[in-house]
C-alpha cells in the first residue's frame, strides 16, 4: 500500500500564515488520501493557539533538536535531521522517531528513515538506485527534490518499482513533489485510486496563495485555474464529441470546470457553442464571417475575446 506523507504544514514557516488559515488548510488536507500529515513546530503552535488539532492518528512533527521530542508529546512520529549520516550523493536523511520510547539510535526508537534529494537522478539510472534502496531491510521513505523539475516523476518512479512511502506537499511547496500531481498520476495509473472527494484542491490553492502571497501559475498541473479552458478549434471540436479526447480526467474531479474561450484559434464548433451559451439565435448569423471577425479582433487585441466583445461582433457581422 502506498503511504504518502504530506508535509505542506512543515513548509510554510517563511510565510505569515494565520492560525485560521492553517486550520482550514489542515481540515482540507485531512480529506485527502494521505497517510500522515507532518507539520513544523511553528505551524503546530499557531494551530493549537486557536483550537486543538482535529482527531487524526498520524500527525508527525518536524523537530530540530531532540529535547523538542519530549516537549511536544502525542505525535505519531518526530522527524529529526540525521546529520551524522552525512550527505552522500546529494541525499540527506531524517530519522522518524517513535513517540513513546527513550531516545536512542536503535530499532526500538526509530520507526523509519527518510531520504531527501534525488533531484538530478532522472538523468541517471534512477531505477537501479531505487531498486537498491528497496532491496535493503530498512523501509525508506523518499522525499524527492524539485531542483531539476522532476520531483513528481521521481515519486511516481519510486512507486512503480515497489516503493511505498514518500513525501509530497500541496503545490510542491518546499521544492518537493506536488501532492496533487502525485495523487492524480497514481490514480490514472490505477496504483492508488482516489475514492475521496478531492474537489477541495480549488480551495486549498486559494489558501496557499493567501498564505504565501504568490499566485499559483494558471497552467499549473492539476490545480491551475485555466487548465480546462479550451480555445483551439480542433480541441473544442474533440471535446464536444467526447471530453476524454482532450482531457486526461474530468475537471470536476479536481474542483474545476471546462470553459470554451473564443479567440484567434477558434473554429466553427466553438463559435456555435458560444452562440448557444449566450442564447443568441444562430439562424441569421454568417458563421464563417463571424469566425474571421473573431480571429481578426483577437489578433488585434493580442488575447481572446470577452463575451461582451463577442456579442458586439455578432451584431456587426
Amino acid at each position: 500500500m502506498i503511504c504518502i506523507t504530506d508535509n505542506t504544514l512543515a513548509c510554510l514557516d517563511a510565510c505569515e500564515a494565520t492560525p485560521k488559515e492553517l486550520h482550514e488548510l489542515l481540515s482540507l488536507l485531512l480529506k485527502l488520501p494521505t497517510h500522515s500529515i507532518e507539520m513544523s513546530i511553528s505551524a503546530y503552535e499557531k494551530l493549537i493557539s486557536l483550537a486543538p488539532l482535529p482527531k487524526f492518528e498520524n500527525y508527525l512533527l518536524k523537530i530540530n533538536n531532540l529535547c523538542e521530542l519530549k516537549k511536544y508529546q502525542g505525535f505519531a512520529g518526530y522527524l529529526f535531521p540525521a546529520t551524522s549520516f552525512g550527505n552522500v550523493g546529494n541525499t540527506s536523511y531524517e530519522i522518524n522517531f517513535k513517540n513513546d520510547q527513550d531516545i536512542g539510535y536503535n530499532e526500538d526508537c526509530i520507526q523509519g528513515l527518510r531520504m531527501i534529494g534525488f533531484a538530478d537522478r532522472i538523468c541517471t539510472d534512477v531505477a537501479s538506485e531505487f531498486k537498491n534502496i528497496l532491496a535493503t531491510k530498512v523501509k525508506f521513505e523518499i522525499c524527492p527534490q524539485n531542483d531539476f523539475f522532476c520531483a513528481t516523476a521521481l515519486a511516481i518512479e519510486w512507486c512503480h518499482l515497489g516503493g511505498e512511502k514518500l513525501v509530497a506537499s500541496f503545490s510542491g511547496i518546499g521544492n518537493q513533489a506536488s501532492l496533487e500531481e502525485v495523487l492524480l498520476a497514481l490514480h490514472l495509473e490505477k496504483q492508488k485510486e482516489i475514492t475521496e472527494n478531492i474537489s477541495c484542491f480549488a480551495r486549498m490553492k486559494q489558501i496557499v496563495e493567501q498564505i504565501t502571497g504568490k499566485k499559483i501559475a494558471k497552467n499549473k498541473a492539476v490545480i491551475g485555474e485555466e487548465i480546462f479552458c479550451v480555445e483551439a478549434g480542433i480541441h473544442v471540436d474533440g471535446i464536444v464529441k467526447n471530453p476524454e479526447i482532450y482531457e486526461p480526467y474530468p475537471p470536476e474531479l479536481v474542483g474545476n470546470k471546462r470553459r470554451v474561450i473564443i479567440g484567434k484559434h477558434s473554429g466553427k464548433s466553438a463559435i456555435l457553442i458560444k452562440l448557444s451559451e449566450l442564447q443568441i439565435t444562430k439562424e441569421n448569423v454568417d458563421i464563417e464571417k463571424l469566425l474571421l471577425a473573431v480571429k481578426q479582433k483577437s489578433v488585434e487585441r493580442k488575447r481572446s475575446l470577452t463575451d461582451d466583445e463577442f456579442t458586439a461582433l455578432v451584431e456587426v457581422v
Partner: protein
Amino acid sequence: MKELRYIVDTTLRDGEQSPGLAFQQEDKLTIAKLLDEAKVYQIEAGIPAMGSFEKEAILSIKDRCQHALISTWNRINKADIEHSFDCKPDLIHISVPVSMAQIYEKLRKDKTWLKKNMIDCVQFAREKGYQVSVGFEDASRAELAFMIELGTILKHYEVLYLRFADTVGILTPASTEKKIKAVIEYTGLDIEFHAHNDLGMAVANSISAAKAGAKFIDTTIAGIGERTGNCDFTKFIYAASTLYDISTDFRAAQELTKQVETIVQK
C-alpha cells in the same frame, strides 16, 4: 563526448494555443528570430490553414531565420497541406490521430480511412519535393501494433521523423521509455517526443524519451500551451544538458525566455 539531442520548438504553434494567447505577426517574427539566434534546431512556425495572417507570419519567419529549420503544422488533409505549400517551409508536419478515441470519436472515421489518407497526404507533400515529418497524435493511448504498422509504411515514403505525442499528458518516465524504445525498435524511424504537462512530468518524460533514443524533443518557451502546457524549453535544457549536447545552452535559453515573456505578458 555527450550524445546530441535536437530541440523542436513549438511555441509559435502549440504554445500559442494557450487559451487567451494571440500573437501578432511581428510577435511571431520576433520570437522566431530569437529562437534562430539561440540555435534552436527547428521552429514549428504555425498552422497555415488558419488563414492569410498566419501564412504571412510564416513566410516572414522563413525569410528572416537563417539557421533553424522552419516547419508548418497540418491536419491530415490535402487542403491544409496546400496552404503549407504557400509558405514554402523547410519541412511539412502532418498530424495523424492514432488512438481509437481520436480516430473513431473525433474524426468519426476508421483505421482504413486513416491509413489511406495518411499515405495520400504524405505522398502529396513528398511529390512537391517537401521533407515531411508525421506526428502520431494521442500516441500514448494508441495501440502499439497500429503505430508500428503506420510507421513501417511511413519509412517507405522516407518520412524524416516520427513525432510521438503524449497529447493528454498521461505518461510517466517509465511508460515513456517503454513506448519510445518499442517504436524505435520496430519502425527504425527517428523519433521526436512531444510532451504535455498534465501531471507535472513533461520535463522528466522528455528526458526519459531522450534516454530511450528520441533524438528530437519538442518544447515551448515558459512551457506555454494547451491546458497545462508543454515541455518547458529552459527547464529541459537545464535538466538535460548534463546528459546531452544541445545546441542551445542554458544561459541563452534563459535570456531568450525573459525576452519572450515580455511579449507573452504584453
